[in-house]
């Protein structure tokens, strides 16, 4: 899952190095506009709905965090 998300996001946002940090949001690498773009990409790729409660730093700070969230929402 992590690999799949990394490939997807690297294609969508080539200017961002997603593996550079485990605190993408806290370090300011991802702003709110980029996060909405990531959410849209995840919705389209995995057919999930990401509720507002899930849009927290913890879930977007790393590819691993995003993968955990997607798996949880798929299950």
């Amino acid at each position: 899952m992590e690999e799949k998300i990394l490939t997807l996001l690297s294609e969508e946002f080539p200017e961002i190095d997603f593996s550079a940090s485990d605190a993408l949001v806290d370090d300011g690498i991802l702003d709110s506009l980029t996060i909405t773009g990531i959410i849209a990409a995840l919705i389209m790729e995995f057919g999930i709905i990401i509720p507002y409660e899930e849009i927290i730093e913890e879930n977007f700070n790393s590819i691993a965090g995003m993968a955990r969230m997607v798996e949880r929402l798929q299950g």
Partner: protein
Amino acid sequence: MLFTTIQFIIFLTITITLYFIFPLNKRWIILLIASGIFYCMAGLKFIPFVLITSFATYYSALLIDRRHGKLNDMTAGGELDEEQEKEAKEKCGKICKRILVITLLIVLGLLSYTKFTHIIIDLLQRAMTSLGVRTVQLSEISVIIPLGISYYTFSTVGYILDVYWKKYRAERNFFKYLLFVLYFPHILQGPFARYNRLAHQLTEGHRFSYERACFGIQLMLWGYFKKLVVADRLAVFVNSVYGDWENQAGFVIVIATFFAAIQIYTDFSGCVDMARGMSQILGIELDMNFRQPYFSRSVEEYWRRWHISLGNWFKDYLYMPVFASKFVANLIKKAKGKYGNKAGRNVAAVVPLIVVWIATGVWHGTGWGHVIWGIWNGGIIISSTLLKNRYVDLRKRLCIKEKKREWQLFQVMRTFILAAFIPKVFTLTDSVSSAWGMIRNMFSEFNVWVFFDQSLYTYGLDRQDFWLSMISIFIVFCVSLMKEKGIQIRESIARKNIVFRWAVYYAAIFSIIIFGMYGPGYDASNFVYMQF
């Protein structure tokens, strides 16, 4: 009681003195009493509105919080199996949602009553008149518009939504919560308060700090300068031209509209500087509301720098929830299924923006001028989001270097015209047809001679006042430019010797006293954003 009155200065001095005399843990009571007095002096008829909103959000948040706590206890105890846990969560979710919806209906209903009653009555009257039925005149029906209703409604709605989303626990003490709602520096014009950032500052009590007090007073003085010396002086010229727009043309309208854009900024940001300054004296930090918006290089950036607390409120409580809703998620999926990934991305970018811009337009005003204002701003932002890649291509083809100073200056001027200058025409005139008339008149004559024939001194400001306006605009520009370059002005002044520091203080105080617009024949205007 406006911030610009002598009564308020006396009131503030007494409040600050009592605040620092009282024991540390009781200081919030002084703020609550002062805020209560400040609000009562605006009108006793407003009290029921603010109390209903405060109590409804306080009590509902408490109920929701208790439900969350109960659910946590049940799930943490390990007494429930998976099925029972799911059922308990669903039940809790349903009850909390019901409480939330009822509260929002009450609170937003009160806000809607103050905002829309006139329009509904107006529409009904027109319909009745066209049917030949005689009705009561609109002027005979009075709608109470409580002081700061938009500001405290949004702050309390943010609070209950945060508790519902489990971002923090609900406040147990009603009076401490009431202080968060009523806190007098921010109730007039904001900035919109976030409970988790402000409430603890209000109740924990702060010791007096000489340095902080100096910085607070400096910020207040700067606010008074912007309001009394700049905004209220420019208002005379703007009102004079816009009040008689049929007989004005060319550069006179251009100058009046330019002045109007400066006026609204100095008026609104001046009030917020006063609020932030007086809070700073008390040891309380209010959120920033402006970050040199007229230096923005795009309309989108402008809206991130102008009325920041409103933009952040809409982002957190409207944009993101709409974006994360099932409705938008399904739209994204449908668009992707039918037209591909690009369409899905566009839906994701555009739909929440449309909702936010409708809400922003309605918040600023309910006339057709404000509808056009909302469509104009929203339209520019949405189209620049959708056409971003094309603009990048176009710039490459035209060999435009993004970092060139000339290009950046062009971007700043373009943004000022698009975001501040043109929309002003629609919000300052009383109807859309007047706005079109103004624009027509603006281009009807190339009367460049008005700059030389002294006719500009016939719009309420004589030669001295007109040039004083220009000098004060230049001062605001220089200070904004220094801030933009990251120069900490107050800290720089604090580092200078005592003679320089006091020279600056005296110059600020005397320029406000001498050049402020409150002498005989003048009347300090209400703050423009107070009406919201």
